[in-house]
Each structure stands twice: as C-alpha cells, then as structure tokens.
C-alpha cells in the first residue's frame, strides 16, 4: 500500500507538471495568436492611414477633388469594411475592454470619418451619388437591437456594394467622433443611423429599415455575388 502510494504521489506530481506545461503552452499559443491578430489589424490600419492621407493630400494639392480617384476611394471603403469585420471579430474574442482593441477602434473610427469626408467631397465635386450610412451602435448593453441592426447592415453592404457603411461605437472616447455625433445631432435611442444625411434611430425589421433609404439606393443592378 505504501509503495503504491509513493508511486502514485510521484506519478500525480509528474502528471500535474505535464498538465501545467500543456495548459501553459495552450494559453501561450492563444495569446500569441491574439497578438498576431492585433498586429495584423495594426498593419492594415497603418496601410489604410497612408492610403487615406495620400488621397487627402491629392485633394489638397489639386485644390479640388481629383475625380479619377473615385475608384481608389471605393477600394479604400471596401478595405475599411473588411478591417471593420476583423476588428469586430477581435473585439468579440478579446472583449470590448481590451486596451489595444479600444486603441485600434479609435484609429479605425478616424479612418472611417476621413473616408466619409472624402466620399462626400468626391460626390460634390464629381457628381457621384454614393449612399452613405453612418451607424452608431453600443456594446455596453444599452442597445438591444444593435445585433440585429449590425447584421442587417452587413447583409445590405454585402448585397449592394455601392452602399458605404460607417459603424461607430457611440461610447468610444474620441474627440472627432464626439464632434461627428454633435454635428449630426445623434440623440435618443440606439442604434442610430444617418442615411445620406437623414437621421433616424431604432431598428425593428430589415424591411422597415430598407424604407429609410432613398429610392433606388438599394438597386440590385450590380448585386455582389456571395
């Protein structure tokens, strides 16, 4: 009995060691991958910052919007949308209190605002008619319809590529975002939307939401294949 107890105690300690090493390795690997995700997001954001600044600088140099950059602006918006999806996934994995996630979200929101302004300037100068949606959501538990609204917007964006959706975390502590909220007079219940400059809030169904769009905005002439 004593002999087997000693053997078992030794075995249990070795087993504990193995388990701790395995668990440690798994935690390390998960952290490593999460950090790699954050690094990837950072590098995409850096690239988009350069592209946005470049487009912006082009405008300044020419003192008007260069209309041949409509295409590159569209590409930028779709890259921004992809970044948004990645950021949302990462936020879901790491939680919305993660400092790095918050920093990336701030940078992302700035990029969105700049892209929104560029799009508006291009529209004014070159006669393009993009449909822009500013979408204000919250992850702080004060927006029960935000999941539905977010999903509906993803669907609309994927189905109608001419749609430019800019999502903002209403509670993000960012000066430019606060100014945008003040300028667009966002108030009351979330989710809130500004569709081509027209304010609305609350979300019930996709069908009702589609009615908020200007006529012809959701045309299926160039539906994107999923």
């Amino acid at each position, binding site marked *: *009995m004593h002999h*087997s*107890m000693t*053997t*078992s105690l*030794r*075995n*249990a300690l*070795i*087993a*504990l060691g*193995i*388990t701790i090493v*395995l*668990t440690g390795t*798994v*935690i390390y*690997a*998960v952290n490593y*991958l*999460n950090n790699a*995700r954050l690094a*990837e997001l950072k590098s995409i954001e850096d690239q988009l910052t350069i592209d946005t600044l470049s487009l912006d600088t082009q405008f300044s140099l020419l003192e008007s919007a260069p209309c041949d950059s409509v295409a590159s602006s569209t590409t930028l918006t779709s890259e921004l949308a992809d970044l948004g999806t*990645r950021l949302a*996934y990462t936020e879901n*994995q790491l939680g919305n209190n993660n400092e790095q996630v918050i920093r990336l979200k701030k940078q992302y929101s700035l990029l969105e605002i700049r892209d929104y302004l560029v799009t508006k300037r291009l529209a004014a100068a070159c006669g393009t008619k993009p449909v822009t949606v500013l979408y204000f959501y919250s992850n702080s538990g004060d927006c029960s319809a935000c*999941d*539905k609204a977010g*999903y*509906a917007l993803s*669907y609309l964006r*994927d*189905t109608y590529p001419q749609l430019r959706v800019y999502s903002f975390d209403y509670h993000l502590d960012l000066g430019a975002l606060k100014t945008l909220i003040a300028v667009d007079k966002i108030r009351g219940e979330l989710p809130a939307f500004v569709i081509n400059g027209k304010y609305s809030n609350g979300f019930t*169904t*996709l*069908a009702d939401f589609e009615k908020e769009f200007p006529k012809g905005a959701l045309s299926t002439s160039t539906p994107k294949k*999923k």
Partner: protein
Amino acid sequence: MSVDALACPFIFIAIFFESFVLVTLLSKPARDARARKPGSATPLVAVVVPCRNEAETIAATTDSLLKLNYPADKLEIILVDNASTDDTPAIMARYQAHPNVTVLHAPERGKHKAVNIGIAATEAEFIGCLDADSFVDPDALNEIIPCFASHRVAAVTAAMSIHQPHNIVEHMQNAEYSFGITMRHAMASINGLYVTPGPFSFYRRSVVEALGGFRYGHQTEDMEMALRMQKAGYEIENAPRARVYTRAPHTVLKLIKQRTRWTNGFLRNTLGEYRSLVLNRDHGVLGMLILPFALTAVVSTALLFLLTISQLTLQIVRGIEVRLGVPLSYALAPRYAGFDWFYFPTSVFALLGFIAMVASLALVAYGRHLSQTPFHLGRSMASYLLYGLIAPLWLVRSTAHVALGKNQAWK
C-alpha cells in the same frame, strides 16, 4: 461567466487525470503487470453464471466456458437461474448432464442472491462470475489465475470488450470498453480499482466469505463488493489480456437505461456506505484521487452539459432573432468564407478540450493493443466521438435520480 471559463477547470482536471494514467502506465508496477506470463498453476476454480431471462445467450455463454483452456477436472461451471420467466431454465437443463456443469435455481430475485447460492455450491478457492450475456476467450482463465499470486489480492478483473459490435452505438461502447481496458490496467497497478465487473471477474473465496458474501448494492453488486474489499484493505488486480466479450445495449435508450443504473449505483455506494473511503489517505490513490475524480466527473459533466445546452439554446434563439427578415441564402452562408488564419477559432477551452479528446482516443487505441482484442479501431474511434454527446444524458439522469431518491430494477 461564460461556459468556457466554467469548463476550463474541469478540462484541466480531465487532462491531469489522463496524464496521470499515462505516467502510471509507464511506471514500474504497470510494466511488471504487463510482463506477467500466463501461469501453469491450475487450482480448482468455479465460474458462477447468474441469469435472469437470458435464453438468447446462456447457451453460447456456457459453451464459451466449456472451451476454456483449463483442466476439465479443475473447472466447475455453476449456472444459477434467478426466477427467469423465459426459456432460460429449459436451456440450462440441457447442460445438466455435463460433468463440469451444475444447474441451480435461486427463486428469490436479486443477482447477489443468485451468486451467493452459486458460491455455496462449490469448494473452489477462486470463483469467477460471468454475466449470462458474455463470452470468454479460451485463454482468459490462464491469464487471471497468476494475478492471485499475492495473498493481498482478493479479486481480479478481466479485459472486456463488446461482442461483435455492429451499429454505431455498439462501436462507441467498444471504444469506451477499450479505454476501460487501459484504465483498469493502469489503476490496478496502484490498487485503484473500485469495480469488479460482471463479465469474468474472479474472487478469492475466503475473502468473499470473510466479508459476508455478496449483498444488495444498489443494482451494482460488483461495485459494492469491490468497494467492500478495498475498505477492508485488500487489493484488486487486473489481467489485461484475459479477453471477455459482452453483449451491449444496441440502442441509445437502452444504453442510457443501463448506464443510469451503473451511475446510480456508483453515486449511492460512494456517497452512502463507502463515503469513508473518499478523501481517506488510508485508502491511498483510490481514496485520494480516483474516487474524488470519478465523483467530480459525474457531477461536473452533468452540470456543464445542462449549462451548455441552455447556452446553446439561447445562442440559437438569438442567432435566429438576429437573422430574421434577412434572406436565407445570406443568413445560412458561412460568415467568414475561405480559409483565413485570422478567423481561426482559438480559445483555451477549445484547445484543451481537443488535447483531452486526442489523449482519450490514444488510451482507446492502447487498450486494443494491450489486450490484443481484434476490432475495427477506426470505426470504434469515430463512433467514440458521439460518446461525449450521449454520456451526459445518463449522468444528468442518474444525478437527478440520486438527488430525488428514485430507484431502478436490475432487469
């Protein structure tokens, strides 16, 4: 708190236990047990077959015993009918004339009563019990007898697998039994066994008598006897190459019924009469590790299962709610199409769960190798993945039964 976070400690314990089994397998006592050769000693042995309504299999069971490679004059086969209402008594009667076979009747229902009547009818020191739906390998007995070399050994268990598994439920159980072969071998090497299963466990008669014979044990008399032996300070050995094949429930419902009975018995025995063994240093690894682990596993699996089901239902309801009104072609399409490492799902829980699963599959494969039982490994392993979905059902059911004080009959 998420289910993942709650489940992590339990997965940690599961991996710890699997590691413990692995280390134990590699340590000297288990290596010595594996090196044990079939013996040449042939003491007088008796095999008691208690049966109640086993007309379908009793003949094959008896025939397999008659084919044991053991001197005929040293082998007694005692068939005990336990108030069967089918053709069992008639089929038994056919063997009455055989010089090695004794046919007895235990009119009062109860497996323990039938076994005791069988034991009383023989002088043999080593007495085996064989469920009437099980069949032994001809060399099984020669593997078992040498395990009684030490006088501390009160019982020896065999290596069980499923008799001719056909459907997925049987293959799944076969993998589980193979896992059991590995576990039993490892645990026996540190005297950690607390069940002497119905299919071909052997007992030292003097110990069984000294302990008062078999008695009612919450429909798990083989567990009750093993726990009683452990409590009295005896050892329970295992013969990993003593192959015995048993018929298994072939439907999920029957399986759940059988396992609920087993788990009920385990909970009632260990939380009742044998509670003093749990966390008792005097009972070594059985008291300090194995019984606490087994109890934790039952209760935590049941709780986690209920929690997972409720969370899953909530998620599905929310998923449907969010997608309502969006065309199905979009709603049902995968969200992140194509492979992108970025979206590779990583959570500590999922990865630890994966490690635990791979380890248990390795223990299944090792059981097959150790016992040299011929079966289709791939099929059993694939079916084994179902086990995790079904096992919680009986764990929940029996935990509820024990908590509510509900009883169940053995047949």
